[in-house]
């Protein structure tokens, strides 16, 4: 018997990274801008996507990939709002992975054609931990925190707040009913993710949505050059 060391030096996520690189190239070739929407369950991912689409739809043709453990509730909501939507049921898995997005993009391609889509919103599984490590080939990851969840979430879940390219604080219309400390929230983010822009919004009441959508449109245009 002999003992020896074998060097492997590969990423644990090499399969997903390969898939994400393929997706990124596919999105780029079709000039599709992809937004990975992250939050805990109930923070307002669906209503934020709907309200964003309302403001962008004269300029961009949007579509949605819905990720949930089960059900097609969100995809039905999106379709009722006139958005092409594909539902992924992860069957218990706490995040979306590249192969699932690949299949969903195939379905969008077959259904409406990628040449007829400018923006895809990926509504990830509601979770503040697991989606962080899985690249989906997106241009932008957006983190939505809602006021009722509390200002301490960036302290408790630093990874996702650090990972995001834009930080939305939703449900600011109900802020008076909650002890949400904006100073503490901003203070944490100033150190944790000082470069991502922050937007205070109410997706259902419209507050702050124009500012967020104007910034997003700038990002979409910048990616096209």
């Amino acid at each position: 018997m002999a003992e020896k060391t074998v060097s492997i030096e590969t990423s644990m996520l090499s399969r997903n990274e390969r898939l994400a690189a393929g997706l990124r190239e596919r999105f780029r070739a079709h000039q599709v801008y992809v937004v990975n929407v992250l939050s805990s369950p109930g923070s307002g991912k669906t209503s934020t996507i709907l309200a964003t689409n309302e403001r962008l739809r004269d300029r961009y043709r949007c579509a949605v990939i819905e990720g949930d453990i089960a059900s097609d509730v969100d995809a039905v909501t999106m379709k009722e709002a006139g958005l092409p939507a594909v539902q992924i049921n992860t069957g218990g898995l706490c995040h979306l992975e590249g192969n699932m997005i690949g299949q969903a993009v195939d379905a969008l391609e077959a259904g409406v054609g990628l040449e007829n889509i400018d923006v895809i919103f990926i509504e990830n599984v509601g979770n503040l931990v697991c989606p962080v490590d899985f690249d989906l080939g997106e241009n932008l990851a957006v983190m939505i925190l809602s006021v009722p969840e509390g200002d301490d979430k960036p302290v408790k879940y630093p990874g996702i707040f650090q990972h995001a390219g834009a930080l939305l604080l939703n449900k600011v219309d109900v802020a008076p009913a909650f002890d949400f400390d904006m100073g503490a929230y901003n203070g944490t983010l100033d150190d944790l993710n000082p470069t991502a822009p922050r937007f205070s919004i109410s997706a259902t009441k419209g507050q702050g949505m124009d500012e967020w959508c104007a910034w997003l449109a700038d990002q979409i245009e910048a990616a096209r050059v």
Partner: protein
Amino acid sequence: MHELGLMSGVVDTVVASARHAGADRVISVRLRIGDMTEVMDEALHFAWEVLRDEDPLTKDAELEVDYVRPRSLCLACGNEFEHDRFHLRCPDCGSAETSLLSGRELDIVGIDIETPDDPEDDTPR
């Protein structure tokens, strides 16, 4: 908690590498994991203990994990600094324009294996 999914990929890679190298068994598996990732040490070891039984090559293999502290480069003043998960600004000049050098690793470094003696192979290791 996606450690089970992560580790199932690790088992596949390890078994393929061990087989390719002609191993009788895998003694240990070494991973390199950055502190900025969402991986929990206990869950990782638990997942490994569950999954290593799937192949006779890995069933006794130990898991060794090297954790990597985050380091960033300040793009404003050139300072290279170690930091925690919460403080990404340059401690010298306060700039937010920094680039992460390490801390997001999720790597399989390598394996220690046992191979049958090969009298013709006297390559020094």
